[in-house]
C-alpha cells in the first residue's frame, strides 16, 4: 500500500448518539450513527469518493431506531454472524488507481460472503440470498450451490467477532449496479437520501462514471444483541464532470450543499473555493507502479480448449508471498497437471509454494484452486492454466447465448501482509476504521468466455428433417403394404373406342 494513498476526510457531517434515556432507561443502550463522505484523489486526476453510513446498535430486536429492520431481521433470523455484500460496476484500473478506499470492495459484479451460525447453513444461505435479492432489487436469488464455495483461507472473519460457523462465498460476475439498487440502498440509510450526505447521492452523479460500487458490511454478536452495520457506496468521478453534475443536482434538489452557509449578499454570484497554496493539477506523464500488479487474460482459440493466464508482478525490493485464487464454474474443467508457473519466461516450479484444489462436480460445485506463490523482488510470475470447456445442455444456455459466459474475477490475496497484520492485531493495536484498513485482496477484471453455442434453430431443423424422412418412409411402406400390384387387363375394344 503506497503511502500516497492519502485519504482526505472532507466532511464529517453528523454524528450522534441516541441518549440511553430515549431507549430503555434501565439498560445501557447506545445506538450510534455516523455518516462520512471521503474523497481521495487518484493519480490520474480522478477522484474516488466513498459514502459511508455506519450504524451501531445494541439490542436491535427491541427497537429499530437506526437499523433498517428489513435488512437486519432476515439476517438475524438466519443466524448470520458476519456478511459482506458488494456490487461493482465497471472496471477498477488497479495500475492507475491503486486500491479502492473501502477495504471490502469486491470484483466486478456481485460478491457475497457470509458466516452463518448453527446447522443447515445451506438453507439459511438460500434464505439470506433471496431476502437480499428482494431488498436490493438484484438477481442474488439465482445463487445456487453450483457457484457457492468456501475459500476460508482467503477471507477471514472479523478478528473482533470470531464465531463458530460455516463460511459461504459467491461471485455473480454478470450482476449490474444501477438506479434500482440505489433506491433501496437509500431506503436503508437512516436519512433516506433526504438530508445529510445521502442527499448528495443522485444517480446521475454516482452512475455517470467509469466505476461505482455499493455494499453492506454486517457483523453481529452471538445473541444478536450488538449489531454493526456499514452501508457504503464508492464511486470514481471525474472532478470536472462532477462539478457540472453537482451544480445540476444542487439546483434541482435544493439541499445539496447546505453544509456551507454564505452571506445572502453572495447569492447569485459565482463563488469559488480554493485551498491555500493550491496548485493546478498537472496530469502525470508516468504513474508510479503499484507494489504488486495483477492481471488475468484468456488464451487459446476454439470452442473446446482454452487457458487462463494470470500475471503477477512484484514491483518492490522485497520478496512477497501471495495466494492466487480461482473459483471456476463447473463448465470449465482445468487440467491441473498442465499448470505452468513461469518466472521471466522460464519455468519456475519453485515459485509455487502451496496448492489447494477442490475439483468441481458437474452442476453441484465449482472448482476452487488456491495457489501460494512466492515472488522474488522485481520479477513477474506467470501462471498458465489450460482448461476444457464443457458442453452444456441446450436449455442451460442463457437467452443471449452468443454473448458468452462471464467468468468471475480471480483474487490475489496478499498473504505476507495479512500475516504481519494479524501479528499486529494480537499485540493490541487499536482497530482502524474500515476505510483505513489495509487491503489484502486484489481483484482481476472479469472475463467473457465463449462456450460452444448450439444453433438454436437446429432442433426445429431436425424435427422437420426427421418428419420429412418419416413421412417418405411411411408413405412408401404403406403403399408397398396396402397396394396390390398386378396386371390390368384392358379390353382391346375399349382401347379402340
Amino acid at each position, binding site marked *: 500500500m503506497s503511502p500516497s494513498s492519502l485519504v482526505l476526510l472532507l466532511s464529517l457531517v453528523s454524528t450522534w448518539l441516541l441518549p440511553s434515556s430515549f431507549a430503555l432507561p434501565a439498560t445501557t443502550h447506545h445506538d450510534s450513527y455516523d455518516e462520512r463522505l471521503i474523497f481521495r484523489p487518484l493519480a490520474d486526476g480522478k477522484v474516488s469518493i466513498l459514502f459511508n453510513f455506519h450504524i451501531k446498535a445494541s439490542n436491535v430486536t427491541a427497537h429499530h431506531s437506526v437499523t433498517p429492520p428489513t435488512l437486519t431481521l432476515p439476517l438475524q433470523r438466519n443466524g448470520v454472524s458476519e456478511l459482506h455484500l458488494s456490487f461493482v*460496476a465497471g472496471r477498477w484500473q488497479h495500475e492507475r488507481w491503486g486500491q479502492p478506499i473501502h477495504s471490502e470492495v469486491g470484483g466486478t459484479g456481485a460478491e457475497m460472503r457470509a458466516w452463518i451460525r448453527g446447522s443447515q447453513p445451506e438453507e439459511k444461505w*438460500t*434464505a439470506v440470498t*433471496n*431476502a437480499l*435479492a*428482494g*431488498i436490493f*432489487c*438484484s*438477481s442474488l*436469488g*439465482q445463487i445456487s450451490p453450483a457457484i457457492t464455495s468456501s475459500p476460508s483461507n482467503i477471507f477471514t472473519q472479523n478478528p473482533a467477532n470470531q464465531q463458530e460457523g460455516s463460511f459461504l462465498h459467491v461471485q455473480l460476475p*454478470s450482476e*449490474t*449496479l*444501477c*438506479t*434500482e439498487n*440505489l*433506491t*433501496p440502498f*437509500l431506503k436503508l440509510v437512516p436519512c433516506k437520501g433526504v438530508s445529510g450526505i445521502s442527499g448528495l447521492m*443522485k*444517480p*446521475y452523479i*454516482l*452512475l*455517470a*462514471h467509469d466505476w461505482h460500487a455499493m455494499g453492506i458490511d454486517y457483523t453481529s454478536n452471538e445473541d444478536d444483541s450488538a449489531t454493526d452495520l456499514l452501508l457504503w457506496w464508492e464511486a470514481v468521478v471525474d472532478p470536472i464532470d462532477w462539478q457540472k453534475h453537482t451544480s*445540476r443536482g444542487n*439546483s*434541482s*434538489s*435544493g439541499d445539496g450543499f447546505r453544509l456551507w452557509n454564505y452571506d445572502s449578499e453572495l447569492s447569485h454570484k459565482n463563488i469559488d473555493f480554493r485551498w491555500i497554496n493550491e496548485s493546478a493539477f498537472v496530469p502525470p506523464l508516468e504513474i508510479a507502479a503499484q507494489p504488486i500488479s495483477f492481471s488475468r487474460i484468456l488464451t487459446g482459440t476454439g470452442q473446446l480448449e482454452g487457458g487462463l493466464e494470470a500475471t503477477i508482478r512484484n514491483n518492490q525490493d522485497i520478496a512477497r508471498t501471495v495466494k492466487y485464487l480461482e473459483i471456476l464454474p463447473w463448465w470449465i474443467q482445468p487440467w491441473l497437471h498442465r499448470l505452468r508457473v513461469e518466472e521471466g519466461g522460464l519455468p519456475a516450479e519453485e515459485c509455487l509454494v502451496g496448492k489447494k484444489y477442490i475439483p468441481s462436480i458437474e452442476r453441484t460445485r465449482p472448482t476452487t484452486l488456491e495457489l501460494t506463490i512466492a515472488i522474488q523482488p522485481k520479477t513477474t510470475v506467470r501462471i498458465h492454466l489450460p482448461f476444457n470447456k464443457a458442453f452444456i445442455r441446450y436449455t442451460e444456455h*442463457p*437467452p*443471449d447465448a452468443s454473448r458468452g459466459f462471464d467468468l468471475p474475477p480471480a483474487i490475489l490475496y496478499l498473504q505476507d501482509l495479512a500475516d504481519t497484520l494479524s501479528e499486529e492485531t494480537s499485540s493490541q493495536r487499536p482497530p482502524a476504521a474500515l476505510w483505513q484498513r489495509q487491503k489484502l485482496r486484489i481483484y482481476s477484471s472479469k472475463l467473457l468466455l465463449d462456450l460452444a453455442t448450439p444453433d438454436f434453430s437446429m432442433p426445429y431443423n431436425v424435427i422437420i428433417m426427421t418428419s420429412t424422412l418419416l413421412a417418405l418412409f411411411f408413405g412408401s411402406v404403406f403403399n408397398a403394404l396396402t397396394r396390390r400390384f398386378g396386371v390390368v387387363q384392358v379390353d382391346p375394344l375399349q382401347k379402340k373406342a
Partner: protein
Amino acid sequence: MANTLGMYRTVKRLGIPDSQIILMLADDVACNPRNGFPGAIYANSGRQLDLYGSGVDTKAANDEEDQPEQDEAQEGVKGVEGVEVDYRGYEVNVENFLRVLTGRLPPHMPPSKHLLTDSSSNIFIYLTGHGGDGFLKFQDNEEIGSRDLGDAVGQMWEKQRYNKMMVMVDTCQANTMYQDIYSPNVIATGSSQLGENSYSHHNDMDIGVAVIDSFTHYVLQYLEGIDKGSKATMQDFVRLRGSDQPTVKKFLIFLPVFFQTQFNIYDPEKIKSHPGIRKDLFPFDLQQTLVTDFFGGVSHVQIPLSHGNASLRGGVTNGTDIWYDLAEGEGIRTGLPAAATNRGERSLSSPVSDTSSFNGSSTSKAHDLSSSLTRSQDWLVVFALGLLFFTLSWTTSRPGRLSRKVKNE
C-alpha cells in the same frame, strides 16, 4: 423499455407504491455503457423527463432562469423518485411471469417478487415487446402464447387473486394476445389488430433509437392529465373502442378536427394502428369504472373519532373508502365492537356511504378489521391495486434492433 418505465412512473404518480408494483425489465439499459445518458432513460427526444430513477425534470432544473417553473416541476415529481426493478436480467422469463401471476413461486421468494393480491384487488398488467399472432416474445428467446396468458388468468380467477383486471398489450398484432382470456371481470386492450404492426412514436436521433411506441405514448399522454382524485371513467379512456368499425372511420374523415380534440387516445390515425378493446368479460359499466381503479392507488382514509360524534371524512368516491377506527391510546383497533356502537351516528353524518353493507358487516361482530373490509365488498372495492408490469426489452441497448420503424414480427 421507455414504454414500461413511462407506465411505471405514471401509476406511481397516481399513488401506487413500489411495494405493489412488480416491474420486470430484461435489460439494464440505463447503466449500459452504451447509454450516452448514464442512469437515465427518456421517453421523448426532448429528454425533459428522466424515467429511470431521478424523476427529475432535468430540463427545468438546468434552466436557472425559469425558477418558478422548476419548482412546479419539483412539486410534480415528489414521490416518483427512484425505481425498483423486481425482476431483472435473466429472471425475466415466461416461467417466472406465469409463476408471479398464479402465485406459484418457490419458497424463500421475497415479498417484492410476489403478487400479493386477493379477491378485492384490482390488477393491471401491461405487456410490451415484440409480438405476433397470439404470442409475445421474452428475451428474444422464448414466447408466451395467448392461451398461456388466458389460462394463467383463469387460474388467478379460480384462486381469487383479483377482483378486476385490466390487460394492456403494446406489441405488433397485440389484440391477438388477449383473445384467449376467458375469465370474468377482465378488460383488455391492445395496440394493434391482427396483421398490423405497432409503430414507435418517434426517434431520438442522438441515441439512435426509437424512444416510445405510439399507443403507449398516447395512453400516457391521457393519463398525464388525470390525478389521484380524478373521476374520469374507463368510458372516457377507451372512447374510440369502435375504431375498427368502418362507420367510425368514415366519420373520421369528415370530422378529423373533432376527433383530434375529443378522442385522441384511441385514434388510429395518430397511433398508426387500430387499437382494440375487449369488454365482453367485463360485467361492470365502463361509465361507472374509474380510470384510477386500474392506474391509481386511491385510498380515502376516514378517521371517525370513536368517542365522539365527529368523523373526519375524505372524499367519497364509489367504494374506495377505508375506515380506520382510532381510539385514543389504542392505535388501530382490530376488533369491531366499539366501532359498531358508533355506526349509527357515523352513517348519519355520512349519508353518502352505503349503510346497508355497514349493517351487514356489523352483525358479524368480532372478526378483524381487514377481513371485514374484504368481505363487505359493496362499499369497499379497491384497497390494494396489485400491478404487474412486464416488458420485453432487448430494445434500447441494441440500437439496430430498436429503431423499429416497422416491427417485423
